[in-house]
């Protein structure tokens, strides 16, 4: 046990300078809030004056340490694995941890020893949401119906990651098929929020968000259909990046709502999320909806802070979406968002308030479209070819029992809603109408993004809530998606990054700021996000260490 602890400490020293400081001196909620308040003052930003230095990219740090021989890939992998062992019983982020992590790490060490070239993700430990297919590794989408299912192929994103040297640590927990906002709808386990074990990590990519927050892996992949990357990023205090629809191939992503689904990235810094996105982006001939748009080299946006000008974001037009700060949004979230906006102003941005008249229409339209598409996408889980099959002496019974026992309540509810919405006589009133709303939302975003370079809003109306709090009130849970679903309907890229804390949990709860950009302009989001992150005073969003680990 003590040996394990030493390893943990070692990894915190090597990979996260901040963790070490926190381990020594636990944060006080008040002091952090003060520093945030201080950062939002309009005085010119020059250099950091606080004790907490800005977060460093895990990917770049790993690369530097490997190339310099400071540490081996195997050592890094071992320390992460033991961290997972120590924390998993409390957090339950992973549904499956790979047996091959060390093997792949050793391969990288051999390459280093031979002086061979290293891929940009060499030795980077990556958590993968369980609805993304990984060859030979269980991929269940958090559903009983796919328990023990192992796909015969890697998703395109996974293939690319492996080619670049990345190591898949394991498969992260999620709401079944991505349907949920808390990860409580997983058929297997409930993931806890590393900031407060009594709270949800958000969802549906809760496992991926919590794993990065708890430093169980360096970065992770999630999927975002209505906010499933951004909302858990906000709840767990990590960076969540939802790319433009079509930027990343969906081949190998188990479909929830095909016209909305995208694979997204989590990291503890904007740079990490951006570099992971770069690795998985690009046209794929196996996905007809993937885009041939060129993928820019994002890395040039991640300048070190000492190269920043005095007003590094001078002239960037930022539109604060008025409708996202109205009634129904927690006052704490509102004030943190306002402070974040002020911080952007301090960086030189031109801040205005914009209105998206169609904003409130998005939520119902989203639930109609997502449910409709999912009712169709989930038809293939019929117990005939793979997945759980319940033996029956009659065909209808086979379907009924396999699906009845294989799917959880939330999934069944959405299949029923979607089936209803697509039924003859209701199609026009629901599905078609929702598509019309979608067009309106696209237009409103387009107009707002002609006037502004980026739009900002909170990522969620509240910080992480208690496990079980909204379990019996689906509408309250759905309402929590109001900040994010419109972005999916419009197919736009958005990034969520932690911008402050509100009261709650032992040390406060993180709040995420959402930045929305024009289609295929992730570059701008990453640039603004990176500068925002690096200049946010006291901006170390590392969750309190677990009691028995600290």
């Amino acid at each position, binding site marked *: 046990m003590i040996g394990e602890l030493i390893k943990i400490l070692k990894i915190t020293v090597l990979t996260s300078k901040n963790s070490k400081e926190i381990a020594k001196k636990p944060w006080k909620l008040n002091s952090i809030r003060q520093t945030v308040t201080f950062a939002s003052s309009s005085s010119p930003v020059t250099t950091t004056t606080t004790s907490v230095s800005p977060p460093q990219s895990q990917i770049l740090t790993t690369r530097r340490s490997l190339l310099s021989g400071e540490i081996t890939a195997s050592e890094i992998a071992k320390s992460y694995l033991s961290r997972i062992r120590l924390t998993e019983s409390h957090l339950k982020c992973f549904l499956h941890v790979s047996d091959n992590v060390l093997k792949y790490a050793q391969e990288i060490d051999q390459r280093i020893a031979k002086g061979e070239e290293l891929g940009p993700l060499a030795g980077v430990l990556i958590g993968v949401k369980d*609805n*993304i*297919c990984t060859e030979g590794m269980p*991929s269940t*989408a958090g559903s009983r119906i*796919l328990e023990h*299912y192992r*796909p*015969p*192929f890697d*998703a395109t994103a996974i293939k690319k990651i492996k080619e670049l040297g990345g190591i898949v640590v394991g498969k992260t927990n999620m709401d079944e098929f991505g349907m949920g906002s808390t990860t409580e709808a997983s058929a297997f386990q409930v993931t806890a929020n590393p900031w407060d074990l009594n709270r949800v990590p958000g969802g549906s990519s809760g496992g991926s968000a919590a794993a990065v927050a708890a430093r169980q892996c360096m970065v992770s992949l999630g999927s975002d259909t209505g906010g499933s990357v951004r909302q858990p990023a906000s709840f767990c205090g990590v960076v969540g990046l939802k790319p433009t629809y079509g930027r990343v191939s*969906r*081949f*190998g*992503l*188990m*479909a929830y*709502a*095909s*016209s909305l689904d995208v694979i997204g990235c989590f990291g503890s810094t904007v740079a990490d999320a951006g570099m992971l996105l770069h690795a998985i982006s690009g046209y794929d*001939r*196996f*996905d*007809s*909806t993937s885009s041939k748009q060129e993928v820019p080299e994002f890395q040039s946006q991640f300048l070190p802070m000492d190269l920043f000008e005095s007003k590094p974001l001078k002239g960037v037009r930022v539109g604060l979406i008025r409708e996202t700060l109205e009634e129904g949004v927690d006052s704490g979230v509102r004030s943190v968002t306002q402070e974040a906006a002020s911080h952007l102003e301090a960086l030189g941005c031109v801040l205005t308030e914009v209105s998206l008249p169609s904003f409130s229409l998005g939520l119902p339209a989203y639930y109609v479209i997502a449910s*409709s*598409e999912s*009712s*169709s996408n*989930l*038809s*293939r*889980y*019929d117990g*005939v*070819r*793979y997945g759980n*099959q319940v*033996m029956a*002496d*009659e*065909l*209808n019974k*086979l*379907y009924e029992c396999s699906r009845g026992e294989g799917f959880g309540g939330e999934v069944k509810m959405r299949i029923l809603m979607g*089936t209803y919405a*697509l*039924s*003859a006589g209701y*199609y026009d009133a629901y*599905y078609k109408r929702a598509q019309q709303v979608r067009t309106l939302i696209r237009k409103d975003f387009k107009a707002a993004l002609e006037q502004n370079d980026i739009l900002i809003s909170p990522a969620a109306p509240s910080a992480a809530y208690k496990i079980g709090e909204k379990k019996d009130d689906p509408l309250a849970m759905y309402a929590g998606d109001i900040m994010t679903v419109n972005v999916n309907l419009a197919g736009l890229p958005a990034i969520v990054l932690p911008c402050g804390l509100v009261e709650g949990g032992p040390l406060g709860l993180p709040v995420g700021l959402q930045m929305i950009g024009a289609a295929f302009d992730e570059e701008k989001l990453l640039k603004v996000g990176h500068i925002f992150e690096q200049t946010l005073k006291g901006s170390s969003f590392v969750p309190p260490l677990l009691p028995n680990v600290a």
Partner: protein
Amino acid sequence: MSTTLFRTIQPNQFTLLGTALFRRRRRSNFSVRCCGTQTTTTHEAKQPSQSRIAPKNHGSNKLDEILRDYEAVIGIETHVQLSTFTKAFCSCPNNYGSHPNTSICPVCMGLPGALPVLNSKVVEFGVRLGLALNCDLSLKSKFDRKQYFYPDLPKGYQISQFDIPIASGGYVDVDIPLEFGGGHRRFGITRVHMEEDAGKLLHSDTGDYSQVDLNRAGVPLLEIVSEPDMRSGIEAAEYASEMQRIVRYLGVSNGNMQEGSLRCDVNISIRPIGQAEFGTKVEIKNLNAFSAISRAIDFEISRQALLYNQGQADQIVSETRLWEEGAQKSVTMRKKEGLADYRYFPEPDLPEVILTQDYVDSIRSSLPELPEAKRRRYEAMGLGMQDVLFLANDVSVAEFFDAVIGKGAEVKLAANWIMSDIAAYLKNEDLSINDVKLTPQELAELIAAIKDGTISGKIGKQILFELLAKGGTVQGMIKAKDLVQITDPAEIEKMVLKVVSENPKQLEQYRNGRTKLEGYFAGQVMKMSKGKANPGLLNKILLEKLNAKD
């Protein structure tokens, strides 16, 4: 890899009671190919009226009688399996008759995360057929999902086209064969759309379980829907056979009905002449030959007319009936209770199908001469309708014929040779015209050699069979076998005199009035010339000598 996963090829894992399966089928509205025969025997026993209309009892006279009082309204849905190298949405080979489940991949198995990618050949073939059927093309069409559960449908939906088919509003012209009254008819084409085929169910002999073969799943189809323009079984069969000719001329399908490459489902209702509204429509499936189409329709007309005549028109219900070729009758497969709700919605995994006018024009200009144009051209050449229909029926025969007359052969002679001796040879040897060694060039040579008297017609026939079986040239064969016709009167006279002098007895009998013996002499001379004597000259000289007074 996929086969190991594909567990339904192991019988025990997919246990369905065959009878239960069928019971369900009858209730359902799903469109499934049916291969069962025991389905509805009990059902039929309750319909005594049918036993009285045995097919043999309704000869054409009786049918004519019926059609004096009733009018049949017939429409046909034709499924054409396209002869593309690969399937519609994946790169699996499109092979008929492969070992079960060897031509499958994650896409056509409907594995989680797999996505369809459209084979552009399918669009090309759709455009070709649409143009050939004189349709308007949709420059912007799309795919939709048609949803129903069945074990042969891996995704739980079929990718098809719903409200915007690739082609619509066309027509097809046919010539009714003389033996069925002749005449020219034009039938409307409502639409042509692209879709994928389903797999096949193999039922165990014991009926204990069924197995799924997915080789056919995802094979591209074009569905052609006709207007309800046909009025008799003959017209319907002729429509179907024109479809077969057209797809074969275009090279989009082998059009083979036995293999299921061309499948016709017939919709039929009758109404008393003078009645404006349509009667109740009945669908007939399992029609594997043109004759089956014709007979099944005549059977159905008689069945419905009898019910009308007995005042039991209310017993004509909307249903799908199955044609039983052995019994020459149709039986109820399932009743249609209300409209099937397939919950169509636009396929989100595939982009719209956009055609440019240039693309369409380039395909239009590459279309071959179609059967109707060919028939009109042959007719204009002066060929009789029977010849026209024969020659234009098979694209290879028509091409052969065109090539022969292209080499200058006389039209009628070329037609005669092809339709008589060559056709007989092909039939005996069970070959197609493409299999024989005879080239159009040599047939033209042969015809010319007979016409100019180089060889006799009889020798011509001998040569023809040699050319068909072994190839070679007419000239070469004439030289090698010394087959040039003897047209020198002096040489023939020599032979005649010799024969006459060698048969004094017969000569005397002839001169005493047994003029029939001329044939005997002619035969002897021909024999002596080894068949090479010009028959006209021979007869002329022989008569002179026989009748000469010496």
